[in-house]
């Protein structure tokens, strides 16, 4: 799994506030899935989709710590599965372009240098702290889809 970009922004550039996660080592996995006679794309998409609520929930809880209008919490969303070759990912977080009212989430995450309540990161830890859970769910789903992962 690794983080990647959010619609043209890198995860650390612009005003991006989201994470992507994906499955690595797909080539090897693909062979195994194909051998098992299952649909590769569906298995991977299902694994990622079922793991997505974990970081989503952590992000929402983090945003609630500074809730004023609720704009930030509402703006935290799970996107659709995106595929590009063997790269399959889902985006979780805030698209500031679509939700400009949630801009202060950027300062909660990255700080503004002087405000007493910031920084209080909630996006990056949502992924870092849940890596084990995310992997575990993905493994379980892939296994149930017939992928011989052990």
């Amino acid at each position, binding site marked *: 799994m690794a983080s990647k970009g959010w619609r043209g922004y*890198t995860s*650390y*550039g612009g005003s991006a506030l989201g994470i992507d996660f994906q499955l690595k080592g797909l080539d090897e996995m693909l062979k195994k899935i194909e051998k098992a006679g299952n649909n590769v794309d569906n298995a991977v998409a299902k694994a990622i989709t079922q793991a997505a609520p974990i970081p989503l929930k952590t992000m929402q809880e983090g945003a609630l710590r500074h809730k004023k209008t609720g704009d930030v919490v509402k703006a935290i969303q799970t996107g659709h599965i995106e595929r590009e070759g063997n790269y399959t990912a889902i985006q979780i977080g805030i698209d500031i372009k679509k939700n400009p009212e949630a801009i202060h989430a950027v300062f909660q995450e990255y700080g503004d*240098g002087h405000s007493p309540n910031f920084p209080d990161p909630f996006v*990056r830890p949502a992924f*870092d*702290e849940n890596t084990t859970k995310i992997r575990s769910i993905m493994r379980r789903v892939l296994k149930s889809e017939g992928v011989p992962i052990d």
Partner: protein
Amino acid sequence: MNEWLTLCEEILTKFKTDNNIPYDYIRYNGDATQLPDTYITYFMVDDLGKSWSDNKEKLRSIRIQVSLYYRKKEITLTIPDKIEAAFIAANFMRIGAGTIPYQSDTGHYGWRCDFRYFERR
């Protein structure tokens, strides 16, 4: 004190001497209207256990963010590279860098960089 924190203080104290840029931990203390033209802050993003034995934590992975706030845009030409070099020289691993939106109330632009440090316990 944690090793990473001691290292950050050492790096940024030297950086202040060499580049005349003040720094503070987490946020710059003081009135927002009296902020320096250029300053640095740093803070921990997360601190995750990575390895355990005998029911004790043996290794942890600390992610920190170093932020640079500045009013003169030309600062971006030199200082971010120097910050990265200083932290990398102290065995921090660069994760990635980006911007912090312009703050119209203080007139500061922002740059940030995440680093990871592995600390034995």
